[in-house]
């Protein structure tokens, strides 16, 4: 098990290296950082001056190595726009995204697990159909449109919730719901499929033959097996949410990572963009590793196999 985890961590580091190379290439080869720093309307001489001042005249591999060494030490550079360490800028935005992401993820699970379970147990009944429609609508509903509709109803018409910002818990209600609904269809469908599959298995029949009550049969014997395929997908969803949903945070002007990313992109604040992409990739790598460990904990066959 330990060897497996170490192997996975090693792979994760390799992947992170690859991602960092891609990000660095995109932001330094595709774009001209000197021009960005010099600002719009700068003369050719200004740009050259910026290029030399920031060391952009040196060869790319040298700059990449230097950047990587800095990143490895936690130095993510200086934000062009805010003129302070990127690490500070990012850290400042983390709490809002974390709160939003966790709330949305919890809500998504709270919706999709019971609904998927019920739909799976009552396959082809009206409950199942309803759940299916709910999932289909969720899959086809563009997040930003759903957010706007929510705003029209709960902010404009009813006036129950604040329109934008991230100051009180009420600011988080609508964004969490929107984000949760985005993740729900996949999770629900997987749960449903898992439950249907597992309920057919022999060990469920054994459990019933022992006289166990239906609740125990389902919750103890079926559910744990049914959610096995869900774990890794849920981890990816959580990673997506913890990375900050650009769309949702931008629409609701929540001062989280996603909004920061959008601002940085519109202002060509390259160091911040690099940092956010790396951070999200890092979260993804850790979460998929966590999912594998959780899976091994849930399923002894993986633990010892």
């Amino acid at each position, binding site marked *: 098990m330990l060897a497996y985890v170490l192997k996975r961590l090693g*792979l994760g580091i*390799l*992947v*992170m290296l*690859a*991602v960092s190379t*891609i990000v660095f290439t*995109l*932001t330094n080869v*595709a*774009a001209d950082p000197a021009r960005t720093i010099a600002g719009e309307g700068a003369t050719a001489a200004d740009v050259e001056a910026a290029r030399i001042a920031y060391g952009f005249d040196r060869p790319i591999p040298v700059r990449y190595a230097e950047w990587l060494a800095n990143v490895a030490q936690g130095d993510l550079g200086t934000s062009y726009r805010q003129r302070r360490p990127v690490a500070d800028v990012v850290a400042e935005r983390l709490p809002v995204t974390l709160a939003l992401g966790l709330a949305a993820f919890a809500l998504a699970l709270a919706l999709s697990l019971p609904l998927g379970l019920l739909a799976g147990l009552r396959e082809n009944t009206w409950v199942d159909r309803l759940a299916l429609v709910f999932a*289909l*609508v969720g*899959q*086809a*509903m*563009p*997040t*930003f*449109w759903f957010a*706007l*509709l929510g*705003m*029209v109803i709960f902010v*404009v018409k009813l006036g129950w919730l604040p329109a934008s910002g991230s100051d009180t818990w009420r600011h988080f209600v609508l964004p969490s719901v929107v984000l949760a609904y985005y993740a729900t269809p996949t999770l629900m469908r997987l749960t449903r499929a898992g439950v249907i599959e597992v309920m057919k298995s022999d060990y469920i029949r054994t459990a019933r033959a022992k006289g166990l009550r239906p609740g125990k049969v389902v919750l103890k014997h079926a559910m744990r097996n049914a959610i096995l395929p869900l774990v890794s997908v849920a981890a*990816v969803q959580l990673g*997506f949410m913890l*990375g900050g949903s*650009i*769309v949702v945070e*931008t629409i609701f002007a929540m001062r989280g990572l996603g909004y920061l*990313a*959008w601002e940085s*992109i*519109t202002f*060509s604040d390259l160091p911040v*963009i690099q940092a*956010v*992409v790396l951070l*999200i*990739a890092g979260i*993804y*790598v850790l979460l998929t590793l966590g999912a594998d460990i959780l899976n091994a904990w849930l399923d002894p066959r993986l633990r010892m196999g």
Partner: protein
Amino acid sequence: MTHLQVNLSENRMRRQKVLRRALSHRSFVIGFVGVGIVLLLAILAPLVTWHDPYAQSIIDRRLPPIWYGWFWDDPLATWNHPLGTDQLGRDYWSRLVYGGRISLFIGLTATLVSGLIGTTLGILAGYFGGRTDMVISFLITTRLTMPVILVALATVALFNSSLMVVTLVLGLLLWDRFAVVTRSATMQVRSMEYVTAAKSIGSSTPRILLTEILPNIAAPLIVIATIEMATAILYEAALSFLGLGVQPPLPSWGLVLAQAKDDIFFAPWMITLPGIALFVLLLSINLLGDGVRDLTSPEGR
């Protein structure tokens, strides 16, 4: 001669059976009709609209759609602009119909690009296995690790956004699912008898890949294609909505929505209509995909 006839009629019967089953599959039919309607409207755009989608008119700004006349006796609602006009007085119906062209173009082109990349990688990994598989799997993992929207936004912004750039960037980003599914499907098919047979009569590898493997993994590929097409359309709309996708005055639905955002208080239909268009198209594509998956799955047969 008679042998041939028997074969023909058998073939026809089988085709009829497949057709009958497809027609009795509800989500397939709904999806097919939905996509068909959007596609027809997009192709016939000049015939079904009577205003230039770009023509502005100061006096005709923010006209309400026709049902405002029916229900609230709004005198401004006329059949001249059945879905009303936008903040620049452009006909909403025309903009939505032409916007459908953009969505479909992006959806199809990006899926083609990503399908080519993903299928090639997946087939190579699945067929050759070993080191090839290791490298390609690493590529897939790396790609999965990168947040699509963010990377797409950043890239599009760096390259100055245009329809072509958005399409290409999405195509270059959305190949992972193709690769994953093709890889495992190829692995399954690889050891089948007909592949071994083809190898033993000395067929070349590219020939085996194209004539033996590809046709046999076509069904899952079609399903993935519908998923990726919906995803590409959704991402384009999101990018454009955030101001970093297709640029004005092109009537991309995402962009139309973004421009309508400021009128959320006084003209809610302006955000409702493009959203519905997007929703209907995405729903239809998803239903179509579900239908194809059910119809081609072994239990469904």
